[in-house]
């Protein structure tokens, strides 16, 4: 590996994005969870749920702050590290980028209002109403920014003539073929990740012996949300696979180690690859890949050998794909099992199951990271598929290595600080104590 500007720019962008998407994902899903909890709390007049919303919102402020600053970083880095790309594509994708900022603006305004008006209205529902623009803002910024990424995968809505972009149609560029499946997948996986992270926190508290009504209600609610959202995510994932088969077959082929074009293609899970592209130790489900690609075992799936060598994505994305899917299945199974046990009044507080829920939180974040890596690495060598290669887009300026080091230090410090501040915030102020302070008439048992 040569550490030239191209490689360093890729590494820096990758590092910033991997760090940012953790907070961006929280930013998309947590407002939904807060809003739901507050709504249930108001409707059932249940102080536990009201407190839940409030405590989640308090932790959320920290992640929003880090999300905002890293988002600003990636926004500027786009132009600083990929100036040639932005000069060409900037004219085509400026609209969604601009609209994303509007959505973010909208969210920022109402989040500020929401966080500082908890006890300001006589009728609590007015406060809850403020959470709607927050959700609308955060989910639509995810939508707009995802259309930009979709555009990079399936560019359309412009022509390239002698290095100049002409005949631009901003709407066509925004609603490119990758947009629907990608937006659905990004938003639903964001929701499920947040539900399961909050579930993991509650499960951990219960395992540590805090078995109050507050924790139990929190876990039940978050587990129901996890199940619902993970089913949506799986459906969106299926749409994405069909989209890939249709429009970006080289990515699917690389992710599936599918080399020869054929009908009745097998689905390969895990395994290893030798020099002759023979697969060993794999789990093989016959004809499943064809079925996934087009709902019929007779679907023809294009293999990687049909593409020129220098346009094939790296084969490592196979593992990212498999791990992401495996984690998704795991989350669905754990939440379904928990809900069944709860419904049939069986051992809902089983220690092993609770540990599985605790593990689900970090695993969900890992799945998000893997999914994005699959998406991004899977379109190598292109930055703008079919139009511009990554190697031609990177900056020619000096100092990328220095910038990389500076940002690595920044993200390291932010990670440590974030964990430290968040854990202190809740350790110093346990739920029972806060419940008693805010709602003195409620029996904490």
């Amino acid at each position, binding site marked *: 590996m040569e550490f030239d500007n191209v490689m360093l720019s890729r590494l820096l962008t990758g590092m910033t994005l991997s760090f940012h998407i953790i907070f961006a994902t929280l930013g998309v899903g947590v407002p939904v969870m807060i809003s739901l909890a507050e709504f249930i709390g108001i409707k059932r007049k249940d102080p536990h749920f009201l407190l839940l919303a409030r405590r989640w919102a*308090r932790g959320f*402020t*920290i992640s929003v*702050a*880090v999300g*905002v*600053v890293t*988002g*600003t970083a990636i*926004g500027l*880095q786009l*132009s*600083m590290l*990929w*100036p*040639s790309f*932005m*000069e060409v594509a*900037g*004219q*085509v994708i*400026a*609209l969604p*980028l*601009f609209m*994303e*900022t*509007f959505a*973010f*603006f909208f969210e*920022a*305004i109402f*989040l*500020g*209002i929401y*966080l*500082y*008006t908890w006890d*300001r209205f006589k009728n609590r529902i007015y406060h809850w109403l403020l959470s709607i*623009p927050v959700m609308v803002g955060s989910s639509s910024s995810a939508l707009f920014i995802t259309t930009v990424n979709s555009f990079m995968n399936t560019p359309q809505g412009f022509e390239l003539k002698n290095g100049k*972009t*002409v005949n*631009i149609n*901003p709407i066509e560029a925004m609603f490119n073929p990758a947009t629907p499946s990608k937006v659905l997948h990004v938003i639903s996986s964001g929701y499920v990740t947040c539900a399961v992270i909050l579930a993991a926190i509650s499960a951990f508290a219960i395992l540590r012996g805090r078995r109050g009504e507050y924790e139990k209600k929190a876990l039940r609610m978050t587990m129901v949300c996890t199940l619902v959202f993970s089913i949506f995510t799986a459906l969106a994932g299926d749409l994405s696979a069909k989209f890939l088969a249709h429009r970006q077959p080289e990515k699917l082929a690389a992710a599936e180690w599918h080399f020869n074009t054929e009908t009745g293609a097998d689905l390969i899970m895990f395994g290893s690859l030798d020099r002759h592209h023979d697969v060993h130790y794999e789990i093989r489900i016959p004809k499943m890949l064809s079925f996934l690609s087009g709902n019929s075992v007779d679907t023809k799936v294009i293999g990687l050998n049909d593409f020129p060598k220098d346009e094939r994505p790296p084969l490592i994305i196979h593992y990212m794909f498999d791990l992401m899917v495996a984690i998704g299945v795991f989350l669905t199974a754990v939440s379904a099992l928990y809900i069944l046990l709860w419904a049939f009044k069986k051992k809902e507080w089983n220690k092993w199951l609770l540990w599985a829920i605790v593990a689900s939180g970090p695993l969900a974040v890992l799945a998000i990271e893997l999914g994005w890596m699959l998406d991004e690495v899977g379109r190598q060598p292109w930055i703008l598929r079919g139009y511009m290669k990554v190697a031609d887009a990177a*900056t*020619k*300026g*000096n*100092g990328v290595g*220095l*910038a990389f080091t*500076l*940002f690595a230090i920044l993200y390291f410090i*932010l990670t440590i*600080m*974030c964990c430290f*501040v968040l854990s*202190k*915030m809740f350790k*110093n102020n346990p739920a029972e104590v806060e419940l008693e302070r805010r709602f003195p008439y409620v029996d904490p048992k």
Partner: protein
Amino acid sequence: MSLEIVGITVLWTFLYGYLIVASIDFGAGFFDFYGKITKQEHVMNTLISRYLSPVWEVTNVFFVFFFVGLVGFFPAAAYYYGTALLIPGSIAILLLAIRGSFYAFGNYGSRRSLVYSFLYGATGLLSPAALSTTLTISEGGFIEVKDHKVHFLANKLFASPYSWSVVFLAIVSVLFISAAFLTYYADRANDLKARTLLRKFALFWSPPTILASLLVFWGLKVHNPVHYDRALDYWWMFALSLICFLTAVYFIYRQKRFGTAFIFVMLQFFFAFFGYGVSHLPYILYPFITVHENVTNPAMGTSLVVAFIFGLLLLIPSLVLLMRLFLFDADYVRGKK
């Protein structure tokens, strides 16, 4: 009005918006830290955090808005500035990142630590310095193009008296704007102690602000005489700016009408900033990028303007709501809510 003029006016207005709200924010961070180390914490720190907490995020968006819009309307700017500003831009992002996150750690976290406020206060003065270098670079002379490669001449920037005068102006005007606003805010809160202290700050920073402005004029004359001559064509804007400044200081000195005084501070910077901006045209980056040659294609330009209008229809009522709840709600400002 042609598309490029609409575009640059929109962007410039947002940058002006950022100048005002960010100055309040940057300066507040510094005063917050200063209050802590001089043990005057009780006097103004609660006041400052009462104002900042609900709005700090919004401040940041003005900035994001500006650079996203600039890239959209003038894609060539992304190429030149992007290549040239890799290191200075990264440093500015780092400063903003430290500021934003440590503000949240300090204010929402359970512990208020002096280290957090130091980082927040120090970056509050360094950020405007770092950001203002972009304006300096736009005057030309700090970027050269050789063999189709853009080079940033960092040494020249460090050696330039003009560049330092801009940095000086950025820092003192941040402190002046912020103190003027917070004096008004303290007045609304009926917080006499904080008002007295902040009024002193406002008066203290007013002479350096004007001095720095004159220095910048002198620096511009040496560095870019073409622009300087164009600026003289708009002398009346700078004269209006001076009159507004004098009016504002008069009100603050006589301890009356702090709200009107702050409006005059805003007008002072409005005239100066737009006078500077309009005389800078048609160049965005002298002499490489002009608004006429490097504007985005009409289809994108039109859709950006449409998006902008719809966006404003959404934002303005929301901003009004935000201000009514936190800025003009006397009970909130006084700490009763």
